[in-house]
């Protein structure tokens, strides 16, 4: 199988680690920093580290926001990583309210700082991730369940439809959303490109979704 995954480069951070991870598992990569470069994309990754408003501003300036929405309608598989996932939602609240891509209904809120013994933000480190196995959309389940992934975040997504949540991790006894899915739209809060073998396997599986199409 030779599939091509297109990585969105909107100038906010280093996309090399995502590219390296995909190439390491034998996936061909393309970089898109303008709408035309997304025209044929069947698998799209929106990486991201940083703040929500800055990310959205850069996507808009490059005209990528509308093109991502078009590709979503055309049923391309779209995966948002960390900030890339958060921007899939209706709105963010980091440094003030900011509209997102609105491909998934819901918002992004700061994680409550003190929950039982957990007091520190950002969340930095590996967390055991639990998938919700009853959920039929969750074809990435075996790549998620009981795996340790690397997280680095202070904000969390709150989907309007609870069954858009396909995996979570626990922080101080409460659940933080780790992964979401809504049709062909996917998102992970963790960094698969920094999560060792578990992350590499995850990226490989995503890259091969619906490959017959």
């Amino acid at each position, binding site marked *: 199988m030779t599939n091509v995954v297109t990585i969105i480069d909107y100038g906010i951070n280093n996309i090399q680690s995502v590219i390296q991870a995909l190439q*390491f598992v034998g996936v061909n990569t393309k970089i898109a920093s303008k709408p035309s470069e997304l025209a044929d994309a069947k698998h799209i990754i929106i990486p991201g580290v940083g*703040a929500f408003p800055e990310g959205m501003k850069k996507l808009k300036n490059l005209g990528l926001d509308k093109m991502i929405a078009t590709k979503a309608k055309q049923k391309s598989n779209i995966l948002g990583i960390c900030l890339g996932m958060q921007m899939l939602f209706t709105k963010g609240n980091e440094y003030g309210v900011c509209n997102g891509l609105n491909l998934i209904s819901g918002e992004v809120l700061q994680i409550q700082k003190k929950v039982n013994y957990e007091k520190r933000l950002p969340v930095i480190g590996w967390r055991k991730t639990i998938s919700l196995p009853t959920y039929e959309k969750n074809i990435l389940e075996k790549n998620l369940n009981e795996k340790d992934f690397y997280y680095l975040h202070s904000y969390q997504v709150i989907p309007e439809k609870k069954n858009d949540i396909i995996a979570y991790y626990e922080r101080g006894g409460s659940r933080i959303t780790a992964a979401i899915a809504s049709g062909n739209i996917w998102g992970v809060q963790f960094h698969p490109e920094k999560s060792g073998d578990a992350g590499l396997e995850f990226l490989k599986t995503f890259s091969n979704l619906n490959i017959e199409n």
Partner: protein
Amino acid sequence: MRNIRVIPRLDVKGPDVINTIQLEGLRTVGSPNILAKNYYNQGADELLIIDQVASLYQRDHLIELIKIFTKEIFIPITVGGGIKSVDDARLILKSGADKVAINTAAVLEPNLISLLAKEFGKQCVVISIPCKMDENKKWEVYTNGGRDKSGLEVFEWAQKVVSLGAGELLVTSIDKDGLRNGFDLNLMQKFNEIDDTPIIVSGGLGKPSHINDLLRISNCEAIATADFLHMKRGNIQELKEIILKSNFKVRL
């Protein structure tokens, strides 16, 4: 209970990794590429790379090194040593590092911390605090790889860097570094006052049970170790087992 990360620390000098005692370079212990790959395969949770000869002439070598690491190593990498500006940090991050560790430049220009946090997000900004107890039994912040006194009191400085936007603190006990007789428990107990920012502890690990001693009194989230791994006194899995036995979580 909370998760604890195990972070191999590579003090890089030119083409070599060196071992330090009280932060003074002592001997060459191997090649950065081979050691880094080996620790990744052993289950390291992150890597910490400190450039010991952080002059401009040595930078190209460090950048090349980071680029090589990111082709085969898929865990977070923090790079420190001689980063003086937002542009320096950008170059390091662009090469593939995930976080930068700052010590001397932050002491000289504390506002750099805010600039870095604003530009790259606070999760990218690790403030390295080498600590040494002075004759009055107060802990002082050192700079320049542990060589120079700063005149700053450790805990006041730590509070300040957190308020300026530090995402993580790397606390190294110069008194204990490389001596293999355990972490500086008094120092780390005092660091519990800072309870809202993740802390990485470095300096003193000689045997796995030292971790148990540390976790009993400290709220730290990560342990950085060099000598213990470089001199093959044990491996990462042994350290993780002792963390589990101390009733904390680790990534296995």
